[in-house]
C-alpha cells in the first residue's frame, strides 16, 4: 500500500519535472513557429492562443489532465497532434523491449543453471573467460555487426527494412529478432554471471550439506533446494534490467532504422519539438517506474521473508 503511494507520487513528480524542464529552456516556441512572419504583436497573439501567458502550474494541470485523457497537445514541427505523431510507434518500442527482455531470460536462466551444474567444465571455463567481453560490447555495435553479418553477408533480412504488424505479424517479429538480440546479449551475460555466482554461493550453505547427506546428486541439490534461494536476487535484477532495455532500444532502433518511440524522440530533439519530446519522456519514464514497482511486488510474493512495508 505504501509502495503504491510512493509510485503515484513518483509518477506525478516525473510528469511535473518533465513539464517544467521544457518551460525553462531559453527561447520562445513562437519564434520558431512564426519564422519569417515574426513580429512582436503576432508572437504575443500566438502566445495567448497557445495559452503560454498563463500561470505555469495551471498549464501543467491542463497538460496533465489532457495527457491522461489522451489529448497530448500539438506537435510543433509535424503540424498535427502529438497522439497522431506517436501513432503506431509505441507498439514497436514495446514489442522490441519485451522481446529483448524475454530473450535475456530465455538465454541466461538455463545457461546460468547449466554452468553452475558443471562448474569448472569446458563450457563454464569458456564463459568465465569470455563473459566480460560480452558485457563490454555496446548494443549498438552488436547491432551494426548483426546488420553486416546477417543482413549484408547472409542476407537473412534487409537492413533498414521493416514490416508493420498490420501487414504481417510474423514479419514484424522477424524484423525485431536481431535488434532484440543486440540489446539482450550484453544483459544476458550479466544475468548469467549473477545466477551462476548466486547458485555457487548457496552451494556453500549448511542446508546443502544436509541435502547431500540425504543422498541427493549435485543436480538434485540444485534443482530441489538451491535454485529457489539462488533465483531471488536474479529475479530482482532481471526486473530492473527492463529500464536499461528500454533505454537500449532507443539506441538500437536507430541502428536498425526501426520506426519506434526512440527514433521519434531523437528526431523531435533534433527539431526542438518539445511537446513530442515531453510526452515520450513521460511515457517511457512512467513505464520504467511502474515496472520497478511490479518487480518489488513480485520479489515480495516469491519470498515472503522480504517485507517492503
Amino acid at each position, binding site marked *: 500500500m505504501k509502495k503504491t503511494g510512493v509510485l503515484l507520487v513518483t509518477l506525478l513528480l516525473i510528469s511535473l519535472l518533465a513539464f517544467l524542464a521544457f518551460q525553462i529552456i531559453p527561447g520562445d516556441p513562437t519564434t520558431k513557429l512564426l519564422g519569417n512572419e515574426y513580429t512582436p504583436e503576432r508572437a504575443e497573439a500566438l502566445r495567448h492562443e497557445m495559452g503560454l501567458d498563463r500561470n505555469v502550474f495551471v498549464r501543467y494541470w491542463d497538460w496533465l489532465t489532457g495527457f491522461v485523457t489522451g489529448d497530448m497537445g500539438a506537435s510543433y514541427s509535424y503540424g498535427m497532434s502529438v497522439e497522431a505523431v506517436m501513432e503506431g510507434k509505441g507498439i514497436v518500442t514495446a514489442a522490441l523491449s519485451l522481446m529483448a527482455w524475454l530473450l535475456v531470460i530465455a538465454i541466461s536462466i538455463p545457461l546460468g543453471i547449466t554452468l553452475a551444474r558443471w562448474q569448472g567444465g569446458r563450457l563454464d571455463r569458456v564463459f568465465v573467460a569470455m563473459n566480460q567481453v560480452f558485457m563490454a560490447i*555496446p548494443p549498438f555495435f552488436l547491432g551494426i555487426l548483426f546488420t553486416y553479418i546477417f543482413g549484408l553477408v547472409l542476407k537473412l533480412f534487409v537492413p533498414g527494412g521493416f514490416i508493420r504488424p498490420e501487414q504481417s505479424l510474423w514479419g514484424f517479429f522477424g524484423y525485431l529478432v536481431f535488434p532484440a538480440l543486440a540489446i539482450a546479449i550484453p544483459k544476458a551475460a550479466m544475468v548469467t554471471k549473477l545466477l551462476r555466482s548466486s547458485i555457487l554461493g548457496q552451494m556453500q550453505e549448511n542446508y546443502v550439506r544436509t541435502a547431500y547427506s540425504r543422498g541427493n546428486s549435485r543436480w538434485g541439490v540444485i534443482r530441489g533446494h538451491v535454485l529457489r534461494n539462488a533465483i531471488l536476487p536474479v529475479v530482482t535484477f532481471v526486473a530492473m534490467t527492463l529500464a*536499461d532495455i528500454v533505454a537500449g532500444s532507443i*539506441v538500437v532502433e536507430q541502428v536498425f532504422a526501426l520506426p519506434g518511440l526512440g527514433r521519434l524522440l531523437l528526431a523531435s530533439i533534433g527539431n526542438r519539438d518539445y511537446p513530442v519530446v515531453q510526452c515520450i519522456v513521460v511515457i517511457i*519514464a512512467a513505464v*520504467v517506474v511502474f515496472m520497478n514497482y511490479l518487480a518489488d511486488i513480485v520479489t515480495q510474493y516469491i519470498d515472503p521473508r522480504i517485507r517492503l512495508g
Partner: protein
Amino acid sequence: MKLRHNKNFVWGAAITAFMVAVILVGMIWTPYDPNAMDGGAKMLSPRLTHLLGTDNFGRDILSRVIEGAGATFLIAAATVAIGLTAGLIIGGLTGYYGGWLDEVIMRLNDAVAAFPSILLALVLIALMEPGKSSIILALGLLFVPSFARVVRAEVARQKSQDYVASARLMGAGDLRVLFAHILPNIVPVLLPSVAIGFNNAVLAEASMSYLGVGVQPPDASLGRMLNEAQGYLLTAPWYALSVGVAIILLILGFGLISEGLGGRSDA
C-alpha cells in the same frame, strides 16, 4: 588475494595501459594526419601503409581511431571527475551529518537512479545545445547519484570508528575529520566505482555521439565515427569494425579493473 595474481585486474590494467599509451602517443604523433584527405586512396582495405585501411575521404582510419579514442577518453575522464567531485561533497556531507536533508537527497538520488540514464541524458541535451561541453555536463550530472550513494554509505560506516573519535578529541573540526581523516579511508571502496564509472561513461558517450546528440563535427569521437562507418558497412566493413573494437577495448579494460578490485560490474 594480491592484485597481481588477480587475472581480471591484470588483464584490465594491461588493456587500459595499452589504450592509454596509444592515446598519449596519438597526442603527439599519429601515422597520418587524422583529417588529411587523399582523393587517390579512398576506401583502401587494411594494408601495410594503412594498417586499418582508409575511409570514404581517403583518411587513415588508424589515425582517426587513435584521435577518436583520445577524445572519448577525455570526455569520460571529465564526466567521472564531475560525478566524483559532486558525489564526494554530497555523499560526504549527507553521510556525515545525516538528518532530514540526507533523507531528501537520498530519495532524490533514488528517483534519478531509477531513470534510464540515456533518457535523462537525452532530456538534458535537448535542453542544451548538442556538443562536447553539453555531453560532459549532462553525463557528469547523471553520474553524481551513484558516486554520492557509495560515498554516503561508506562515510556513515566510518564515522563511528575509533580513529574518527580520536581525531575529534584532538580538536579536529567536522570538515577536517571528513576530508582529511575519513576520505583517505574510503578510497579503496571508491576505486571500483571509479573504474565502473569510466566504463559507463565511455559507453554513454559513444551511444550519445552515435545518436548524433553528443560530440559534433569537426570534433572526433568513437561514437560519431561509428555512425559514419555504418554507412559504408558493405564497402568498408573494416571501418566500423576498427572503431567498434576500440570502444570495446576501452570498456573492457575498465570493466575488468573494476571486477578485479572487487566491484560489481552490474552496479
